């Protein structure tokens, strides 16, 4: 294998999986959201939940379709481009992937049809069961694929016999050290990404003056989810970091751009910003907080973390990249927490639905969950290099040896063109659906005022109640908004 072909194969994998990972993240979150909506509808009988269901299921279907076809590519790419890896580790990754297909893909696919097209044919209870089956399927799928990925990061429970991995203890293979953290982190990220998208869509409609119960319910539910998941994610991420410190120290050193061990008792500073230079073995332009690194990473005043120079140069992951992908993820996470608590604060007196800066912030953060997922995924995958199976097999040895640069280059170019066309169009359709907003019976739109009710910007301002300061705020905002939008 020529070095360029290896590079192209890695770019191809990174490219195809970057597209792929977006869609399962959205379908995991949306499927659970849809199950909650349908459950609430069956319980309360409030039509708003059904309207939202009918709205988001269309976005879900688009995302699901794209997830299926891009996932199909992934299932075959392990063999086409990474045949040495498949032969070496297939004994572990194969059965895990097979279980994913058997327990998750079929479940999702089998009940998706009923979920999308079967409401008139099966009745509400069975339809609800189908929605739940799809939602559970997405979670089962995440469990298996993360078991497989985590095993590649922190392998255990196997022996190497005749140059290939032989599983000896499946329990240890699946419940490998990083699996619980990775699973919790990824599923929470999927919920966060979906909440941000749903909330951002609602905020966008509110900013355009389309205020009704459906849009409000969307925003409110999304913000509750965000409030629960965003701080939780910070805790899970912290625990995941401790796990990485223990099992993949080189990755952690690269994330921190930490080159030299600090003397005993001094504590490790936290580099907020900087530019890790792999050649010169220093982090340039570093902005540091003394001892904060020890506190954050080792949870002690003078805890040590491993340094990049502890590892041979050929065993170091690229610090320049993971330093920044990690900070992108954490930075966005901080913004998500800020949005969640700002939203909580604004709930007093219904200001949530009218404070424009808040709504603009929510719109701006709507893709943040997906960006953070990609950044986090780059951090963990590039941070694992140069290993494909940590400590067992190098990425350079995993690639299919027989493909020429021309062959891999051709298929890479093909995927780039096809993906940009297909998923570009899909994103456009998804955004167009979201821009249309949830349809409903406009007659149900109640008059202005009262908790949980809609306000109608078109109504004369004199009709607004005068007794509530918060309502007056809304009225002022609504007046401005109304002027701009010509209501």
């Amino acid at each position: 294998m020529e070095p360029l072909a290896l590079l192209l194969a890695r770019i191809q994998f990174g490219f195809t999986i970057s597209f792929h990972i977006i869609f399962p993240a959205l379908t995991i979150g949306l499927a659970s959201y849809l199950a909650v909506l349908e459950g609430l509808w069956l319980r309360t009988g409030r039509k708003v939940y059904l309207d939202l269901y009918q709205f988001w299921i269309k976005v879900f279907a688009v995302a699901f379709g794209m997830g299926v076809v891009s996932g199909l590519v992934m299932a075959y790419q392990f063999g086409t481009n990474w045949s040495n890896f498949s032969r070496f580790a297939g004994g572990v990754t194969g059965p895990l992937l097979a279980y994913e297909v058997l327990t998750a893909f079929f479940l999702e696919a089998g009940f998706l049809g009923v979920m999308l097209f079967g409401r008139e044919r099966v009745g509400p209870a069975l339809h609800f069961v189908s929605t739940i089956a799809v939602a559970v399927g997405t979670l089962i799928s995440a469990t298996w694929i993360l078991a497989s990925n985590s095993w590649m990061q922190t392998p255990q429970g196997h022996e190497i016999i005749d140059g290939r991995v032989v599983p000896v203890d499946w329990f240890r293979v699946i419940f490998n050290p990083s699996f619980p953290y990775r699973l919790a982190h990824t599923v929470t990220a999927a919920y966060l990404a979906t909440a941000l998208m749903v909330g951002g869509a609602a905020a966008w409609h509110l900013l355009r003056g389309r205020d009704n119960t459906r849009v409000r319910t969307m925003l409110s539910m999304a913000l509750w989810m965000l409030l629960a998941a965003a701080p939780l994610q910070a805790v899970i991420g912290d625990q995941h970091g401790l796990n990485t410190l223990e099992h993949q120290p080189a990755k952690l050193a690269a994330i921190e751009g930490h080159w030299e061990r600090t003397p005993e008792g001094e504590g490790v500073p936290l580099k907020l910003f900087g530019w890790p230079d792999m050649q010169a073995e220093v982090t340039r332009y570093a902005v540091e907080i003394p001892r904060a690194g020890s506190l954050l990473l080792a949870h002690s005043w003078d805890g040590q973390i491993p340094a990049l120079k502890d590892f041979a140069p050929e065993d170091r992951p690229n610090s320049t990249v993971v330093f920044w992908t990690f900070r992108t993820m954490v930075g966005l996470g901080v913004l998500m927490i800020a949005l969640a608590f700002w939203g909580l604060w604004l709930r007093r007196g219904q200001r949530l639905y009218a404070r424009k800066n808040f709504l603009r912030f929510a719109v701006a953060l709507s893709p943040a969950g997906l960006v953070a997922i990609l950044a986090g995924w780059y951090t963990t995958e590039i941070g694992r290099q140069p290993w494909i199976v940590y400590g067992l097999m190098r990425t350079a040895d995993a690639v299919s040896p027989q493909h020429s640069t021309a062959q891999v280059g051709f298929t890479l170019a093909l995927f780039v063109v096809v993906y940009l066309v297909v998923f570009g169009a899909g994103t456009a359709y998804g955004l167009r659906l979201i821009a249309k907003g949830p349809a409903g019976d406009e007659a149900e739109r109640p008059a202005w005022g009262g908790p949980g009710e809609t306000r109608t910007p078109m109504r004369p301002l004199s009709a607004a109640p005068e007794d509530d300061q918060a309502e007056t705020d809304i009225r002022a905002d609504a007046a401005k908004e109304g002027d701009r939008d010509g209501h």
Partner: protein
Amino acid sequence: MGIDLPLIWAVIILFGIMMYVVMDGFDLGIGILFPFVPAKEDRDVLMNTVAPVWDGNETWLVLGGAGLLAAFPLAYAVILSAFYLPLILMLVGLVFRGVAFEFRFKARAGKRRWWDHAFIGGSVTAAFFQGVTLGAFLNGMPVEGGNYAGGAFDWVSPFSLFTGVALVAAYALLGATWLVMKTEGRLQMRMRSLARPLAWLMLAVIIAISIWTPLAHEAIARRWFSLPNLLWFAPVPTLVALVTWRLLRELGGEGHASPFVLTLGLLFLGYTGLGISLWPNVIPPDISIWQAAGPPQSLGFALVGALLIIPVILMYTAWSYWVFRGKVRHGDGYH
């Protein structure tokens, strides 16, 4: 314990691939037949006959890949490397037709034609390259030191190109007879009239492959034409003749579901024939399922799941088909 794990896994994978060919076959066939059905409303009906189930159909292909990786990692590595280009072209085809299901209903009128073309092109491409891969697989591939040792274009041969076209024809026939079952009136008549020449074509293709394969491969010829075998296998061609004859009669008559069932039978017979020709090799011409098998710990672990779960999958898949039974009319669907 004398459980032959590789053997059981070979049966499971063969079953999975057969399920794929049978099920995705007819929905790929719909894409292949699209050019013959120009009206938008008719095309919507065609799509809606499979929209609720196509995704499950395609999952059998993923099971084939995952099962191969789990049970025969060597075969997975060699076969996917050997057929790198046709498989990736097949995947690209499946990408286009897969998203077309959602996109064409959400596209504006002007763009919809574009997704119609993507659906047609994707279906034909996927079917053709599946057939090419099948033909090239029959031809066998060189292996050295556990790696594919041939060139990037070894899969191109007159035989493999022929099997590519043959599979397009087979899927078209499956699609046409499926639509005879799922549609009514003028559209159904159109499908009946399309299915008849396709059935003849299918018969011709089966005969051609049956002659071509033993001529090209001495081992396959020996298997079929040595004496006890010949008697065992004689029912295959006999049944092919019978089923085709019956299919042509049903297409001329009133049968709604029977042409589809008979076509499935025909496909199953062809598939059996291929299985007989290749057995027990997972990498033709000479690496057997036992030589390519993964560690028994892997096969055993995955087998538990497969044996417990596949029956459940078949049950809810059947249920889902049952939910969407009956004819599809203009205006059906959720869009």
